[in-house]
């Protein structure tokens, strides 16, 4: 604190608070986002509760068998067990009370606490999504740059067709085709699942098999997990590769028109240096913008990929929750997706600042 302030301490009024707040932009940004997340979560629980109850379905009918649903005692026991015998506002308040204490309720389909289910299935999807996004970033950006540099030549035309095909073809069809060709016909990829049948998972640390196997030194399991991961990850990356190729091509083409690029070339800088240090860096903000979209695609695509590759992730869990009207599970998954999206948008905003100093200043 400056000496003048110590000598004449100012009262901690609104003006001082505003200046203190303005002098800490990162903290203010994080706090604003955190507040938005809380409000968003509240809204999501409310909307999920209302919408699920507006659906003309009965969780007891969806979860009890054909005989048991005709037994009033069994139906009453089910409703009492899951708190469905209480009025909706009461159910909602109880849910919020439990939520504050970290309890997401018990799933009607798995009979497990939803928190346990999420902890089980999220790592499987995270492993798939992260590897897939990694592949998409490397391949998509590379192809986009190549297409821009070879503008209107054969390479560009071929890559544009490939990227268009990537975003146009249904992912479940590509998944089945890939499994048929690389597993069934060629035998290059193993079959479905995260590991070979009967193989023991690595010691549990995160639930991400490749990471856990690496950390615990289970090399056999690491290879097994990697080999099972590659095909679904590549298929899941297909859509994102198409998207990134198109975005990168467009962004790089814009930058290539700039005078400073011409100047850099005129100075005699090597082509790769111009591309990596000047072109790509300037094009990155536009590419980073689609990062959130990549995660969204990975999450939605994972439902189908997980079904075809028998991958026990959050996509399958969400689908089965919806079809069995499993309210605690539906709400739990919705909350997870909301937190994920807010977090990704936060990371993207921070990345803007890292990439482009002008944004940091403003």
């Amino acid at each position, binding site marked *: 604190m400056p000496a003048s302030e110590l000598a004449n301490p100012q009262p901690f009024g609104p003006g001082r608070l505003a200046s203190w707040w303005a002098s800490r932009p990162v903290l203010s940004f994080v706090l604003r986002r955190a507040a938005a997340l809380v409000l968003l979560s509240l809204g999501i629980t409310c909307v999920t509760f209302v919408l699920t109850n507006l*659906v*003309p*379905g*009965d969780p007891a*009918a*969806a*979860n009890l*068998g*054909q*005989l*048991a*649903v*005709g*037994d009033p*005692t*069994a139906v009453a*026991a089910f409703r*009492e*067990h899951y708190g469905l015998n209480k009025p909706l506002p009461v159910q909602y308040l109880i849910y919020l009370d439990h939520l504050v204490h970290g309890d997401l309720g018990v799933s009607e*389909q*798995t*009979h*497990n606490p939803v928190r346990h289910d999420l902890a*089980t299935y999220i790592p499987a999807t995270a492993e798939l999504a992260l590897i897939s996004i990694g592949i998409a970033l*490397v391949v998509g950006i590379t192809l986009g740059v190549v297409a821009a540099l070879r503008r209107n030549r054969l390479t560009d035309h071929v890559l544009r067709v490939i990227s268009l095909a990537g975003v146009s073809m249904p992912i479940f069809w590509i998944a*089945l085709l890939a*499994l*048929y060709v690389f*597993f*069934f016909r060629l*035998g*290059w*990829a*193993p*079959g*479905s*699942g*995260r590991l*070979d*049948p*009967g193989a023991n998972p690595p010691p549990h640390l995160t639930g991400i098999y490749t990471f856990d196997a690496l950390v615990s030194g289970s090399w056999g399991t690491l*290879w*097994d997990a*990697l*080999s*099972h991961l*590659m*095909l679904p990850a590549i298929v899941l990356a297909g859509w994102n590769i198409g998207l990134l190729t198109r975005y990168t091509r467009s962004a790089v083409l814009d930058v290539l028109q700039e005078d400073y690029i011409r100047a850099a070339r005129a100075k005699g800088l*090597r082509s790769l*240096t111009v591309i990596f240090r000047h072109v790509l860096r300037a094009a990155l903000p536009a590419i980073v913008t689609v990062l959130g979209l990549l995660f969204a695609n990975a999450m939605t695509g994972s439902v189908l990929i997980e079904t*075809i*590759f*028998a991958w*026990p992730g959050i996509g*399958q*869990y969400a689908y*089965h929750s919806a*079809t*069995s*009207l499993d309210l605690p599970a539906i709400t739990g998954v919705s909350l997870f997706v909301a937190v994920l999206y807010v977090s990704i948008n936060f990371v993207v905003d921070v990345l803007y600042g890292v990439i482009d100093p002008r944004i940091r200043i403003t």
Partner: protein
Amino acid sequence: MHSSRSRSRRSARFWAGVVTAAALVAALIVASAAGAKAGHSTANTTLVVDNSFDLKSADPAHSGEPTGELVDRAIYDTLLTFNGANVATPIPDLASSYKASADARTYTFTLRKGIHFGDGTQLTSADVVFSLNRVINIKGVSSTLLAGVTVTAKGPWTVILKSATPNPAIPAIITNAALGITEAKVVKAHGGTSAPGADQSDKAESFLNSQSAGTGPYMLKSFDVASQVVLSRNPHYWGPPPAFQTVVIRNVAAPTQLLDVQRGTNEIALDLSPTQASTINSKSVLVHESPSANVIFLFANRNPQVSATASNADFAAAVRYALDYPGLVKLAGKGAVQAGGIVPSMFLGSLGAKQSIKTNVAKAKAELAASGLSNPTVKLEFPSDITLNGVAFATIAQRIQSELGAVGISVTLAGSPIATALTGYRAGQEEMGLWYWSPDYPDPNDYVAFLPGQLVGLRVGWTAGADATIDQLSHTASTSPDPATRAKAFQSLQERMNSIGPFFPLIQPGQVIVASKNLTNTVYNPVWYLNIAGVGTR
């Protein structure tokens, strides 16, 4: 000079990065291929069963879904069981013999001696009483199997089941894997209880989802309702040891099962449709096709408040004769048969092909004319997201719409997801509906629910006392202790239902089991799909 050195350093770094990235990609491809090769050579001691999971729990008291039956059948023994596909005569399992009273109310089971649980404890009548009472008091999916039944022990080796009403189906009912016997001491130690109020106070389910407490041929090694269940051979099993040391039951969608089973060894696929099975040209697998015990049926609601059209008896008769039953069987593919009545063809009291409803378009038109209805329009509701044994309900509904249209009945299709469609169906609000029934136990008493005033009968507005002949026949059919008398009564009952009732039994779709050629005994069972412990090798 300096600039040139710096450039060359940058260039070296760049190429080092490229080489590293290429090496990483190559390593991943090699790993993938190596893993693929390893994956194909599943150990000879492991059996892999692919199934589209319908699974909630491994705890018998909370189980009842098809995959649960498959799993629990391998882990928990029951008092009686069935051998292979034969579901006509229960055979001894934990009970060496049983005796039924003349009024079919009391069943006395004598237990085998020398059967031990995994911890060495000998199975006694106390374990049986605990397990069955736990199912009753948990009031879960399977509690209705023992509705009105009290279970008591008479000494350590005798168990008595008393039914409030005559119930000749009890020997068949207790073969259900949900009524498997657990070790009372262990389950109690992990929060289990069989006392009234167990629906709220029993806490043993999570324990029984992590390890088993039975006397069956296998023990639970790991359990995940979404991905896979792994079983390992029970070293204390009292019967002949199963052929495989480990069994992996995986949750796999049907299209993937089709590829897996043709590439794998010691592998079984349970959910292929007849159409998918027909695409197999691999010599390494065997395809078994047989009628399933699922009955797909159509109904016209008898409640005039729900529909003045559908409740018209002549209209119902027109629908009955307008349907092209052979065409529907063909649509369902190999293994499918026409459902003679509401009781599946492999059960006691089922109707043969000769007694089934025959298509007669002229008669259908005459019946429609007699109904007094002019250009009737009805709404047909069905679960649009359900495919049973490879047959999509939406496809059958479209076929019905076309066939009824040919005799002058306009059908509006109203498909919706099963979670929502069930509500209207179970509330008795559907004008016409297309649904199915899977057996809870292999006895025709499971189909009494379709009679007037019963569970399904009421859903279609068929109230008690609607038909005196049916009432009379149903009493004999469901309570007589003599199987021959029951069989005859059930057949007469179904003939009557086929001629005047609101139900139109359509088909039993084909059940396909595809297995590696070296496997034996991969026989379909109507209740638990497959007896895993019975699968052997050539």
